[in-house]
């Protein structure tokens, strides 16, 4: 009976990362069996099973006790979150500056006259808060901000009653943020000066353009090729990642950059006429030229990243 119960507990503990099991399994099994003494139980109670499942989920999401290769995947998720949040925060700043400009100079348009528009302001402010939290290393605040954003977006889709495929796809993509953010390690500490500098630099280029577009009498266009701006920013990031040895040796950064560049440029080159690209990325010939360069660099990042990743051990090295 005891041997059978022990076997069941050990099978349950297989959910935990191998590194964690090596450190704690024997002691946990002793504690489990001691807690079962005199209770006549033949299998792990539901409460104990759930506690192990929750522990496994938490450890795996946080990348704790993972082997080096698993840690590299977590780092890739964190780097991807950082790059995408920078993009969201800059877009949010442009939209909020535009709204503020219109409220100031075009009050007749009543830009902030209803609850829905204020919830839009809150939605974009939360993206900026999420980015700031990640850069400052406030991971709990980051998770709260992103979960609130997803809830706000889901609420807006439900209230509107829209069943359009575009809305449902956007909802799925927004919800995917939850997984990405949960995978960010609790001890993530990006280099503040670099990431705050990237945000402030982008905001200083695009903010005044958005403000001048909101002025009375202006054509309403930004006056900056937004698509070209993103491509050039990505190009700089990719070149920096390939040029700096510490970044070049980090598969997480390379895979994250490859993921962003290959997805955006590949899709953009394949579907030049999709409305999303003409709005967000632009379709000028200069942008297409940069796309080709970016795609090649993205593929290079992916190759170097995968080669570096494959050199990392799949299992945690045995303690000496």
């Amino acid at each position, binding site marked *: 009976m005891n041997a059978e119960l022990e076997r069941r507990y050990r099978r349950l503990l297989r959910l935990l990362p191998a590194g964690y099991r090596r450190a704690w399994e*024997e*002691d946990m099994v*002793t*504690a489990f*069996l001691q807690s079962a003494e005199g209770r006549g139980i033949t299998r792990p109670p539901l409460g104990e099973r*759930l506690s192990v499942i929750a*522990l496994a989920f*938490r450890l795996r999401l946080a990348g704790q006790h993972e082997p080096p290769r698993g840690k590299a995947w977590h780092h890739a998720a964190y780097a991807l979150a950082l790059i995408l949040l920078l993009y969201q925060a800059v877009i949010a700043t442009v939209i909020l500056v535009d709204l503020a400009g219109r409220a100031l100079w075009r009050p007749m348009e009543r830009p902030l006259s209803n609850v829905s528009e204020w919830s839009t302001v809150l939605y974009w402010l939360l993206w900026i808060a999420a980015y700031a939290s990640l850069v400052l290393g406030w991971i709990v605040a980051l998770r709260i901000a992103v979960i609130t954003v997803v809830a706000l977006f889901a609420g807006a889709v439900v209230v509107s009653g829209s069943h359009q495929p575009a809305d449902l796809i956007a909802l799925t993509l927004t919800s995917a943020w939850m997984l990405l953010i949960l995978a960010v390690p609790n001890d993530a500490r990006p280099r503040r000066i670099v990431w705050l500098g990237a945000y402030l630099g982008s905001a200083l280029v695009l903010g005044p353009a958005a403000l001048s577009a909101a002025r009375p009498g202006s054509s309403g266009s930004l006056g900056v090729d937004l698509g070209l701006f993103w491509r050039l920013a990505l190009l700089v990031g990719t070149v920096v990642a390939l040029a700096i040895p510490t970044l070049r040796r980090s598969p997480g950064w390379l895979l994250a950059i490859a993921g962003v560049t290959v997805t955006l440029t590949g899709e953009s080159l394949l579907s030049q006429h999709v409305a999303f690209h003409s709005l967000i990325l632009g379709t000028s010939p200069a942008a297409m030229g940069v796309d080709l360069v970016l795609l090649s660099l993205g593929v290079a990042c992916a190759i170097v990243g995968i080669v570096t990743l494959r050199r990392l051990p799949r299992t945690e090295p045995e303690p000496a």
Partner: protein
Amino acid sequence: MTMSEPTFFVLTALLGEPRHGYGIVGEVDQLSGGRVQLKIGSLYGILDRLVDEGLVELDREEAYQGRLRRYYRITNAGLAAVRAEAARQAANARAAARRLRSINLQLGEAS
């Protein structure tokens, strides 16, 4: 940074003497008057973190029914963390008690 209630009770359970995993579960149950009933999975999640942060360490290993049982003890850093958390909770309780006393006085005067 505030400490979660289960973490606080795990550290408090280790004050005075080293304990093994199941012993900590029982002590936490007793200390909290049955309010905090730790599951083994939750306990080892907390212990892993506390060992990592240097608040708890391995004291010894003993044989128990043919298997090894580990005993854990609180470190000086763990002791300081419990002291700080206990002081924070005591200050909160005093503030609430003061406010309750003043409300009781006001209610007494009104009636």
